[in-house]
């Protein structure tokens, strides 16, 4: 072992001790600061989003409450155009179409809502609507399969079935 070896080993030893000291010190300081619970942070995030949605979709939601569905649909669509990444708009619209009995449109907008925000099919989030969606999808699949047998080339029915398959796959979970 020559002097270069000895110096190298000494340098490694000293640096390792310094590194360990820094890490331990950092760890001790970090443990003194009260840690934020990630679930609390997440709850606050969802609350902020909920308030934001209420503000953005206030008007069409109030129209819907008054039973003015056609005007509400038009307004929802206008707001969605301005905020295309807000998944809640698609979900509100899907709910509204379901209320008015337009199954294929409702399923389509549910699909868009889930595509924009998978939290809707995530049991661990407060946005989860999976149970209701499962029922809707299984009922819709039966109905649309019958319609497909009658009108095999109808593009609306085919698209609705594709939307259902998408939702079924998302509802099944997995790594996506």
């Amino acid at each position, binding site marked *: 072992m020559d002097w270069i070896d000895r110096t190298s080993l000494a340098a490694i030893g000293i640096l390792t001790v310094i590194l360990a000291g820094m890490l331990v010190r950092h760890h001790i300081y970090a443990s003194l600061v009260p840690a934020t619970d*990630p679930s609390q942070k997440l709850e606050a995030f969802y609350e902020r989003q909920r308030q934001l949605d209420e503000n953005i979709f206030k008007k069409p939601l109030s129209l819907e409450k008054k039973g003015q569905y056609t005007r509400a649909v038009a307004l929802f669509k206008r707001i969605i155009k301005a905020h295309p990444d807000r998944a809640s708009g698609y979900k509100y619209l899907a709910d509204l179409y379901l209320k008015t009995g337009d199954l294929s449109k409702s399923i389509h907008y549910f699909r868009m809502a889930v595509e924009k925000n998978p939290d809707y099919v995530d049991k661990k989030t407060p946005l989860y609507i999976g149970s209701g969606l499962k029922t809707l999808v299984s009922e819709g699949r039966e109905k649309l399969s019958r319609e497909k047998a009658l009108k095999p080339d109808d593009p609306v029915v085919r698209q609705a079935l594709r939307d259902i398959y998408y939702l079924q796959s998302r509802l099944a979970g*997995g790594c*996506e």
Partner: protein
Amino acid sequence: MRRLFDLSVATGLALGLGGVILSYLGNPANSGICISCFLENIAGALTLHHEIRMSYIRPEISGFILGSLVMAVSTGRFRVRGGSSPAVRFLLGFFMIAGCAVFIGCPVKMILRLGAGDLTAIPAAIGLASGVYIGVRYLKGGFRPDIPREMPGINGLFLPAFALLLLLFLWLRPAFLAIGQRGPAADHAPILIALGIGLGIGALAQRSGLCITGGIRNLFLARDLTLFNGIAMALVAATGLNLLLGSFHLGLHAQPSSHQAHGWTFLAMLLVGLSSVLIDGCPFRQLIKAGTGDVDAAITTMGMLVGGALVFGWSIRSTSAGPAFGGKIAVITGLIFSIGVAYLLRQKTRRT
């Protein structure tokens, strides 16, 4: 030979049962073990991509590498070698993960999906076998990557050290680490159980040499069923346990992380099959080899990790809606690259 046969069947059994048990204990459905998904998760946790729903350090990956290392060291099989076309291997590792992302799963997950009754994995199996078959044609036609050479020991410890570091991160949770609280990232089995299963499977796989594409390759190349029996056992075990646990759902629809673009599934797994033959092992096998001191496999694994990050960054993957445009481009580019590599590294017999 008899012992190897038994070991590969035992490894297949562990892989099939382990995959289903891990899903049962919390891992995402049909993704109890998925090398590509897990590497995507790790890439996210290290903030190499920003999809928080896919960000978690999967201890199974560290388990596979370290289990293999322990077994290799204890049986005197730890040999540090490498230097065989590292850049090519890195890129093939990347494309392998791109192919997996378009199918939504690696070859191991393909077995688990089949074992859960997911019929959309059938085109994947046909694609994988076709890719392996094409690879075997290239092997028979003179494809020879340059021969690896012995290297200084420190090179072989690089990936096992990385695996240990990941476990340390999982334990200490440093501030820069991103761990998702929702989505697949939040679906995970208890850490110690996941690590234990990973270690056990890693050790067994090191001894048996089990590899999904390797088993198919040996069948095509030499009619050797040794490894293929392990794959068959993994499928039988996964199917049996899924039936027992009520998680077997036969069908094309309502399958977790699946899509209906069967043509792209076929092509994506064809890419995985072909590239796996060219670099001698599926993504799972690369991890196991990396644990035995194979520096080339370690470099491939790094390529796979980069792939795991870029499938999100560049959107080269599939969702339940089908493959994104970037995913389709990546599959075709990967096939061009793989065929190009196979073509360029052929050593044709010269006629005199």
